[in-house]
């Protein structure tokens, strides 16, 4: 039970008599992805099922998943690797508390906790090694204290106290990091305080004349959209993690959203940022849409990954909610044609809100996740479609790939736009494959993270990672990285060929974002996580050697730090270093990310 929830609930009961407030920690898994009530499992009949009520897939049977898992990974339902069911508090090191800090903190009235469960919950992101350790009940260095500031001023007080008492602060938003950014540096000897921004989750104002909203940085993506929707607006920023990730986290990691083609990435959406640093508060004096005032200080903040301070409030662009949304999908005879089509779409600058191209393996994977169909008619139709594509059109089922599309805007324009895109696709041998396939593709984005937990129950571990790359290198990087993964797994003694697949998830004028999924069956390996890390490391080396970037939107954290110097040059490192040295000379924000 979250400590804050107790106190807060008590306070709520006292003040308003009813609790409308929900603490995410209460309803989320402590050692896996997402909500506790939602997960994949194999039922008594051995069929895969997705529990809960939150998603379209919830409560459904997924008949094809088991066979796919067995044939792809050589996994077996008899060979289970269950997770430790509950957190063993005795495995958690007792907190190193800075008494003077604590004393003054108490006097401010800001809620805090050194309960083991609260601390462990904020000690990790969702890298494979982090979750794997939790499932085994292994707990490393965790924050010694958690504080819940309620507003900007609370943060100012906490940072002042931290500076005064030389306490290490680590900002915590939604906890969805996949770069080891939330891992406590084991060499840190000071008391580590996790600064949880979740209570700073209000929209402070909406400016309908300028279409901006001023929002506290702790707000989680889905709440932000829901609340704005209530006023008829949206930000349109939808990273795959938007259910749990926070606005502050987006700013700190330079996040990218699925619909960036219409709304832009976080750097395009932000108008004004307020951040509390050890040197004081940084913000601009006005909300002009563009300024020529030297290097944009926002760009010191965006991507700073919690090393400089805490983002407390952000003014963001908002848009009226789209009148009409339409999903779509296109099947291509092979990945090469698909990439050529995406390139052409980008050249003509007519990309829909989202366009993603999955390779053949991922297409098959998506297929395996089709829920049981209720009517014979649907399955008949499916059969017919398959027949048309593979037999009539001559697509090789082991080579074809699929693009999913999402169009947004007013109805007429959407339909026009849709036609334009399908016409381009046709030039590259693409066949329209229906709205359903498209919608399912996007739905999978949200449930795919749950699937890793199922895999981990059966000796399968895996992860995704991403890069951005110029257009002319897209095919080469996809081929080479996938092949490298397969070869490395073989060399490292992985018994069964791994799943090594990719998709192109974003298009830009000059390149694309590529997302890789990689998973393997680790039976027979004595140190699977180490093998996993070696393969991931090799895959990143391969990405860099093939002209890919270190990261498109996941960030650097501690996981990819070693490549920063070669990525931005020594001078670049010096620039970042000097900013850090000025803003935070005593390394109060000591999560040691990035540099």
């Amino acid at each position, binding site marked *: 039970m979250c400590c804050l929830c107790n106190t807060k609930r008590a306070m709520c009961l006292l003040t308003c008599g009813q609790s409308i407030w929900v603490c995410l920690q209460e309803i989320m898994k402590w050692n896996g992805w997402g909500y506790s009530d939602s997960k994949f499992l194999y039922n008594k009949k051995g069929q895969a099922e997705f529990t809960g009520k939150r998603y379209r897939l919830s409560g459904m049977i997924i008949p094809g998943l088991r066979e796919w898992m067995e044939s792809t990974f050589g996994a077996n339902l008899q060979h289970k690797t269950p997770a430790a069911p509950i957190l063993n508090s005795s495995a958690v090191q007792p907190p190193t508390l800075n008494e003077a800090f604590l004393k003054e903190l108490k006097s401010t009235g800001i809620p805090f906790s050194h309960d083991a469960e609260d601390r462990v919950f904020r000690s990790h992101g969702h890298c494979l090694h982090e979750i794997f350790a939790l499932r085994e009940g292994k707990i490393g260095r965790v924050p010694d204290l958690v504080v819940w500031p309620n507003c900007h001023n609370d943060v100012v007080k906490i940072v002042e106290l931290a500076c005064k008492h030389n306490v290490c602060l680590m900002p915590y938003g939604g906890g969805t990091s996949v770069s080891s950014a939330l891992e406590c540096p084991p060499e840190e000897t000071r008391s580590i305080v996790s600064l949880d921004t979740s209570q700073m989750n209000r929209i402070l104002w909406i400016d309908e004349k300028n279409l901006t909203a001023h929002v506290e940085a702790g707000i989680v993506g889905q709440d932000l959209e829901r609340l704005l929707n209530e006023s008829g607006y949206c930000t349109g920023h939808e990273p795959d993690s938007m259910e749990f990730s926070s606005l502050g986290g987006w700013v700190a990691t330079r996040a990218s959203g699925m619909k960036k083609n219409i709304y832009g990435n976080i750097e395009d959406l932000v108008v004004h940022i307020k951040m509390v640093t050890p040197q004081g508060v940084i913000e601009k004096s006005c909300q002009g849409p563009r300024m020529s005032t030297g290097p944009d200080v926002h760009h010191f903040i965006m991507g700073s990954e919690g090393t400089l301070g805490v983002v407390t409030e952000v003014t963001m662009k908002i848009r009226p909610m789209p009148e009409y949304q339409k999903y779509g999908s296109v099947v291509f005879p092979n990945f090469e044609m698909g990439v050529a089509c995406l390139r052409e779409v980008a050249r003509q600058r007519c990309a829909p809100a989202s366009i993603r191209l999955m390779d053949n393996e991922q297409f098959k994977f998506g297929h395996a996740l089709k829920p049981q169909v209720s009517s014979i008619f649907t399955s008949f139709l499916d059969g017919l479609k398959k027949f048309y594509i593979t037999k009539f059109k001559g697509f090789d089922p082991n080579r074809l790939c699929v693009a999913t599309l999402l169009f947004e805007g007013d109805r007429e324009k959407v339909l026009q736009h849709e036609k334009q895109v399908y016409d381009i696709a046709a030039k590259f041998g693409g066949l329209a494959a229906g709205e359903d396939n498209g919608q399912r593709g996007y739905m999978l984005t949200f449930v795919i993270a749950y699937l890793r937990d199922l895999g981990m129950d059966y000796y399968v571990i895996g992860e995704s990672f991403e890069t951005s790359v110029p257009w*002319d*290198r897209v095919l080469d*990087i996809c*081929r*080479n990285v996938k*092949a490298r993964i397969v070869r490395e797994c*073989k060399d490292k003694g992985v018994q069964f060929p791994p799943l090594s697949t990719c998709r192109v998830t974003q298009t830009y004028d000059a390149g694309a974002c590529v997302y890789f999924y990689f998973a393997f069956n680790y039976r027979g390996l004595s140190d699977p996580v180490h093998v996993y890390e070696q393969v991931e490391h090799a895959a990143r080396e391969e990405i860099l050697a*093939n*002209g890919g970037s270190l990261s498109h939107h996941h960030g650097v954290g501690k996981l990819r730090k070693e490549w920063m110097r*070669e990525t931005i040059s020594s001078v670049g490192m010096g620039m970042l270093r000097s900013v850090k040295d000025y803003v935070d000379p005593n390394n109060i924000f000591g999560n040691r990310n990035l540099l």
Partner: protein
Amino acid sequence: MTSTYKDSGTASLKDEEEFTDILEERRCTTDLGYALRTFNPQPYKGAPSSSTSDLKKAVLESQYLRYIAKEIALETGSSVEKVRQEARGILEEMSHNLQLGFIRLMAYTVNKVFKRLFRSIYVNMEGLNMLQQAIQESPVILMPNHRSYVDFLIVSFILFTYDIPIPVIAAGIPLASMKVVGEILRRSGAFFIRRAIGSDKLYWAVLSEYVRTIVRTGCAPLEFYVEGFRSRTLKSVVPKLGMMDMVLEPYFKGEVFDITLVPISISYDRVVEESLLALELLGVPKPKESTTGLFKASRVLQEDYGCMHVNFGRPLSVRQLCEGKINRSEYNLIPRDLPQRPSTEIQDCVNWVAHLIVRTQEEGSLISPWSLMACLLLQAPITTLTEEGLQWHGLTEKTLWLRKLVLDFRGRLNWPAHTTDSDVMSSTVALHHSIVHHKAGRVCLVQDGDPASQDPLSPEEGVMRTAAAVLMLVSYRNQALHVFVRPGILATAIHITKSTQKDELFSFFCFLRDVFANEFIFIPGRASQDFDEACSLLQKCGAVHMSEQEVTVLETGLEVLSFLQKLLQPFLDSYQLIFRYLCENGAHVFTEKQFLPAVQNLATKLILSGDLHTFEVLSSDTQKNVLSALRRLEAVTKLRASQQNEYKVNKAAVRRTGDILSGKIPPESLHAIPDARL
């Protein structure tokens, strides 16, 4: 799966490998039936089935060629269209036109010819199996050595026989101009490269794009001779890097995941062109390749050439070879379609890979009993050989002794099993009746005289006649040289320095390795490994005793050491003679045209006066190698402005090099050992 590459320096010799005689089966079936067999190879998995016209189109329309064409048009003031037209012409002249029908014709003919020429063609099936595997996984480069025109189509022939995709083969343009034959070769997969491309930018561009496209698409295995041309001396030639560079670039630029290199060692008992080679080296010009010439050569079909061995080496993964040596991200900042000069890191790596391949070819080649005999015959005084002859009994004994030494040195020996040693000896001599004859317990050198000529030979002509015979022997000795080179150099270092100090010997070893880098194949950057190898081999055969600091010669090792030292003596003598020529001859600037005959004259004189004991310096190959070595050591420089290969000599530097070589001054004073780079 390509094998893991472990150690390049030492021959990873497994137990006797299985060689299969592929002619045996051919002799039992009809040639026509064989040529018409079903041919259904498994190609590289990613390769689209593309025609030669697709290939040409891809090359012509490549971004790279467009860019170069524009650049050339700008430089020369002609129109882009004109330049592209020219490029099209070059491509037409170059391009292969592989067609299955012609492969069958080729197989039919080659089969017939080979059955005439050779008793057997042995192929290691294991290597072939590995190749078959490798071809399905990544683009494959077949890299045979080149000792005879005969081997031009041997690999295609074998691959056709075993249902493996037929390669496209890089060939010299003279072959293309042969009537009919040129076209048949083209349709059998040959593509043709001009000699002396020099600075023809457009030609380079077309050629490199053509080669890269073949590798990138993996449409067919690519075969080329990394040595650049047929070795006239039967010794490995220092690899040429142009083709190697083009072939590896698609990997460096990430256009393919990996490339597989397959070194192939082809060894002959007897080389068809043996007498031509010697004459060519002595300056008698080589006959132009022509179809009529080919038919004239058909008298060679009457002769017996023994066996041929084709040893397919382990497939080497370029990715694994280059790991840690290069950083491919240097290509990140310039579009890969644009010309970019590779960094020295990349160039060094290409050079290293090329040397490694040639070394691997050497290690894979088989040494015949005849090569061993040639080593020994050449150590006998020349008059013995030409006049009274060498004792058969002694030669047999020595050859058997040398056989043991080769095995100690981990050489691959092709010594017929199930035959008595004396039978092996006599059949070997019988096979080489054109060079030696065995009569009355003695072995003499056969000297090719012209019986029609009535005029007695002048002394100079006599020298040349003997030289021709000796150089033939030399070339067979050369086939075995790679086994002895490293310990031989150490033996030479011991002989010259008279030192027992390891570090002193090592620095002299490095000096010799450096001076003779054009004669023998040394993998760059492996001087200390080479030295260690030499030490351990000499220790193994009981020639020396090794301690931490010292190398001491053992009584039992004198025979080995003296053999090795005498084996390399002709090289030292030849180099010293040419050094002497350069120092004592007045000219500071000379052309290659003056240099070659002048050296030959001086050498002939000294041979006649009994002051020079080797004929090898008469070989233009040796002369050119010395020149290259001196240029590498910066004692001779090529004049840039000069059209006719003019050289400027730094006499002091040449003299110093000679003095070090003779042991007068220690090698430390040499300015640089440039190969410590890798």
